[in-house]
């Protein structure tokens, strides 16, 4: 199904290379589609109120409002002030993560060893993505991980495990207000979130139907 089947004209269509950041303002009513082109590629994602960047995605607000930590069709991504930022209008993967956050050079050292300090990481991508907007470290909060699978066991044990995604799976996000979207196409190679092989994803922005 092409994105234009469910929305209006395609305004932007781009392949985000493996390991790369991406940003764009998505206007109210427009739909952002993220396609996992080759399968099991985590896409770290933040969005901000474009008119007030201090208002941004909140994992806590989002999961409290729906009473569930997994994201799928119908999920509303909510801001730290409780406002709907984007709505998941389609999801062919099934569930996505809200609790694992982004990989960073620093957290990698704790998880895998000090030898990983110089590996590229999602926080590096977010910092680069936000820099043109005059934003940086203080603007990073717990993010969405599209196509990433983080189950929680009864005793609270959790982990990033093999993905549920597959080539061509996608998620559609309709902007409820004008939002700045920041993406890190995750470069992690030390856990299964990218199948140990980071790959490109496709991002498409289309007009309201």
């Amino acid at each position, binding site marked *: 199904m092409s994105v234009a089947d469910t929305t209006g004209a395609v305004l932007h269509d781009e392949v985000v290379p493996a390991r790369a950041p991406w940003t764009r303002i998505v206007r109210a009513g427009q739909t952002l589609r993220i396609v996992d082109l080759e399968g099991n590629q985590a896409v770290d994602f933040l969005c901000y109120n474009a008119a007030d960047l201090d208002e941004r995605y909140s994992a806590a607000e989002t999961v409290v409002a729906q*009473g*569930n930590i*997994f994201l799928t069709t119908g999920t509303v991504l909510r801001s*730290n002030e409780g406002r709907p930022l984007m709505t998941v209008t389609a999801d062919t993967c099934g569930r996505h993560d809200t609790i694992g956050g982004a990989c960073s050079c620093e957290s990698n050292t704790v998880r895998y060893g000090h030898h990983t300090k110089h590996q590229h990481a999602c926080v590096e991508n977010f910092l680069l993505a936000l820099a043109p907007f005059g934003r940086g470290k203080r603007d990073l*909060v717990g993010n969405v991980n599209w196509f990433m699978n983080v189950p929680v066991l009864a005793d609270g044990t*959790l982990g990033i495990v093999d993905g549920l995604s597959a080539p061509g799976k996608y998620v559609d996000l309709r902007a409820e207000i004008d939002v700045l979207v920041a993406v890190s196409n995750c470069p992690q190679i030390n856990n299964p979130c990218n199948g140990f092989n980071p790959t490109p994803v496709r991002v498409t922005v289309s007009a309201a139907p």
Partner: protein
Amino acid sequence: MTSTISTADPLGARAHARAQAGTVAATQPTIPASSATGLPAGVAPESVLWDETIGAGGYAVRRLPRGARLRITDLDGDGCAGLVVHNARRPEERLNVADTVKLQWNAYLGPGKLLLSDQGRVLLSILADTGGAHDTLCGTATAARNRARYGTGDNFGPAPNGRDRFLLALAKHGLGRRDLPQNVNFFKGVRVEDDGALTFVGDASAPGAHVELRAELDVLVSVVNVPHPLDPRPVYTATPLRCTAWAGPPTPPDDPLRSATPEAGRAFENTDDERLGWERA
């Protein structure tokens, strides 16, 4: 009341103001902290750094030096202690709940767990916990959520929201909206079901339950006492919390938390490494 004193002129107004000193409120700080009573066994009064009781809807913020112990007590068993912590020397480093649960491979807090920063370091470690259920996932309520549940959520009203309380705490240290990370909650818990659903555990703590935290760097601790965002009760409910901190020795090289897991070991190594930039060995 001191209503018998005229406040018609400055001298009367001064006398009226001064006559109020010595009043004891239900919730307030102990000044000086060393005059605090009812201290944990073995804590010398002169070592007390902070003692403050926080009532329903209240908040407090405090710098604490490395090695300090902070005991938060759920005095009557129905409080909810929302907490954020920043590196006091460079507050752009702060609590990261995603890294806290991911790096420790567990969503729940308890004795021996660490509160980790976004820089792979330990800000606070949990030395003791008689409270049982806590929460890393739900944050604190916004003004909008409190308006929906209680009809009001303003800081100047009867049901202050946790987010604005945290913003006030941070504002007193020059920090703003960008500086507020997702908080943890002590004394009110949630559980994650197999399908991802969140179940409110609620009031699992007995009167007098406490958590005891140790500062692993110089930290800025902000505490709010507001209903948990999933607390279903229609009445805004939060019984008083007491925060008591005292000076203590920095974590020794053979501390058992350092060797509890490989991840904890490396987080402490990163913490030690950070301090090399501040202090002589």
